[in-house]
């Protein structure tokens, strides 16, 4: 009986999705996205779109192999943009009505009057919504696998990890949508509040990353200031020695030699004053950096704690990137980009005298450190805690559904 009922509900879900044009629209759009990825290519001159070539200095096969290029496009555009945003929003719109429809008056009486436990009824309905996303992602991933294989010459089986990862990512949002649908019985309310929840997760994630970037930047500056403070005593001592040397007149010193010695002494004294002043300013800066670092540490700890409790949608999607690419894979490409960026920066910072101006802008090396920190976070922290959140929400849903009188 369990199999008969489950099959019936899955078939019913398929019929429902089939009747909604959104399912087919999403599938067609997914196909178009893959087709557009397939149209783009890379050669030794630059980027190709169908039979046209756009010459680019930093984006050609000297920096990036075709396989890496397609993986890059798939991750950045197909996965992080299409699947994580557009396709998920379309899926949410399509499936948001499943739970409110289940509990709608006239419909729920029919479902509950059948020999099926309430928990199983609810969870099966929930699973049918995930089936929708699974189908969409499955088709998209298979097509992308073929494109990377045929066009890039690399058969990346690990790309199929996208299916469970997107399903998990979607389920983190959808469990909240299901809870809201159950409580409010309104599709619109469930949908809008779920998008709001999603936005909240996005904000938490952006905030945590930004604070992490500034925190690492502050740590970087502390290290740099401490290094500098470590070198300054030696410079001061050397200057002092030279001042002593330049203070002692040589035997038979001519006027010209005396003038030169006194000039050198004056220069060394100025240098010494400069070093001593740098010690004072660096110590002040160090105190400031340490204070900033402490504040940022506190904020980061708080944001990290909040993030631990809630689903980590961005990191979940980031797991595929971690799996598919190494930090070194795009090294040449990112080095070239960094070089251009440094060039641009130095042009912007530079002035006529050639003196550099200190800015608070984090350096590319700090950005790389952020990436390293994000990649070092354990899969359990990313998925385990998120799944725990989902289980908790589903538990609340089941408790409400089982206890409610309809």
């Amino acid at each position: 009986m369990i199999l008969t009922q489950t099959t019936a509900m899955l078939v019913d879900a398929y019929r429902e999705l089939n009747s909604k044009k959104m399912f087919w629209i999403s599938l067609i759009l997914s196909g178009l996205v893959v087709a557009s990825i397939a149209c783009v290519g890379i050669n030794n001159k630059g980027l190709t779109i169908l039979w046209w070539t756009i010459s680019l200095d930093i984006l050609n096969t000297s920096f990036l192999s075709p396989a890496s290029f397609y993986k890059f496009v798939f991750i950045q555009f197909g996965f992080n943009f299409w699947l994580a945003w557009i396709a998920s929003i379309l899926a949410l719109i399509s499936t948001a009505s499943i739970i409110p429809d289940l509990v709608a008056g006239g419909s729920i009486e029919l479902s509950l009057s059948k020999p099926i436990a309430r928990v199983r009824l609810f969870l099966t309905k929930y699973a049918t919504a995930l089936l929708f996303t699974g189908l969409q992602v499955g088709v998209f991933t298979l097509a992308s696998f073929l494109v990377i294989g045929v066009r890039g010459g690399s058969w990346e089986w690990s790309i199929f990890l996208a299916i469970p990862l997107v399903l998990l990512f979607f389920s983190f949002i959808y469990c909240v949508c299901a809870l809201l649908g159950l409580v409010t019985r309104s599709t619109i309310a469930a949908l809008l509040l779920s998008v709001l929840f999603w936005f909240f997760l996005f904000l938490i994630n952006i905030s945590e990353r930004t604070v992490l970037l500034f925190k690492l930047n502050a740590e970087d500056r502390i290290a740099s200031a401490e290094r500098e403070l470590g070198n300054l005593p030696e410079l001061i001592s050397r200057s002092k020695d030279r001042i002593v040397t330049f203070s002692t007149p040589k035997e038979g010193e001519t006027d010209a030699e005396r003038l030169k010695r006194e000039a050198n002494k004056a220069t060394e004294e100025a240098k010494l004053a400069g070093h001593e002043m740098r010690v004072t300013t660096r110590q002040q800066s160090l105190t400031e950096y340490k204070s900033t670092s402490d504040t940022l540490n506190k904020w980061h700890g708080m944001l990290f704690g909040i993030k631990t409790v809630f689903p980590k949608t961005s990191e979940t999607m980031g797991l595929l990137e971690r799996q598919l690419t190494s930090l070194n894979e795009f090294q040449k490409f990112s080095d070239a980009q960094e070089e251009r960026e440094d060039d641009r920066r130095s042009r912007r910072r530079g002035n006529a005298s050639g003196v550099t101006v200190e800015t608070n802008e984090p350096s590319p090396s700090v950005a790389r450190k952020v990436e390293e920190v994000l990649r070092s976070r354990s899969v359990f922290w990313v998925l385990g805690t998120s799944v725990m959140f989902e289980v908790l929400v589903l538990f609340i849903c089941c408790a409400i559904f089982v206890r409610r009188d309809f």
Partner: protein
Amino acid sequence: MTTATADLALDLKDVDKSYAAGWFKKGVHALRGIDMHVGRGEVFGLLGPNGAGKSTLIKILMTVISPTRAQGTMLGRKIGDKSTLARVGYLPEHHRFPEYLTGRQVVEFYGAMSGVSRADRKRRAADLLDFVGMSKWADTKVRGYSKGMRQRVGIAQALVNDPELVLFDEPTDGVDPVGRRDIRQMCQTLKDRGKTVFLNSHLLSELEMICDRVAILVQGRVASQGTIDSLTTHRQRYEIEVASDDSNVNTSLRAALGPWLRADAAGSIAGQLPSGEQIDVRLDQPHAPAMVKIATADAAKVQPLLDSIRAARLTLRAVRPIRPSLEDLFMEAVTDPTTGKTLAPGAKEGA
């Protein structure tokens, strides 16, 4: 299990349901210890005014609502047992079928949900759609159906698991007279096939035509239950209409019935037969002829009064045995005996 219980499709004892008070709502005591018995193979009617708790009771039986307290059995199993529902059919009052399904798919889907095998539900869906007169529209989407057609498909889905007990909540709601007659015939056919039919309806005349037994629910309590005959026998009476062609008709009638009368109120006279049955006399009025009402179904007990009226040379216009209708029973149940006013609709507030 006793033999008596085994013969019962429904044996309810002390079914109680209270809705707790919330922030913005008062608590409601919807059912107040319902005792009800429905025999196997009978058509049972549940009557009551709006808010009496009829649908709540049915929803409790179908596990849609959990009772505050309930004892008893449905088809021999404890109330609330999910597995029993495989042997029960149910048509909710305001059902809503998925609009994207055809009538056939609706019947097959709910058949599958009841655990009916694929082959059986295919065969039964075809048979049942024919039974409810929907074969022609079986493959049309529900969104194109009229209210009556939806109701017919609803009946078909309620029967797809070949249930022993069928609960119909307002099956004729929004259905035209032809549809109502068809639904009545379907209930009769189900009874002939040995099924127990539990009907909740406002249409008293229809229930009277097909129900073996009824229960009247008022403000969460069973006001009365039994066969229509048993409920009406002690309410049967005779009415004697006396012609008013004589100007002294009232005096003559009073004199003729003198031995049985005991009091004289304004415009009416009351009395009693030696066996205790009530006599009510309405005297002749400009637009209402004199009328004697005797609360008995026994014709022999009426004869002495008739003889006496004839002896007083009054003309008898009519002598009628009156059997109260279900509507009379219903109205009696929903009327406050002390004030004579109809009880307010709805359940009683407070736990």
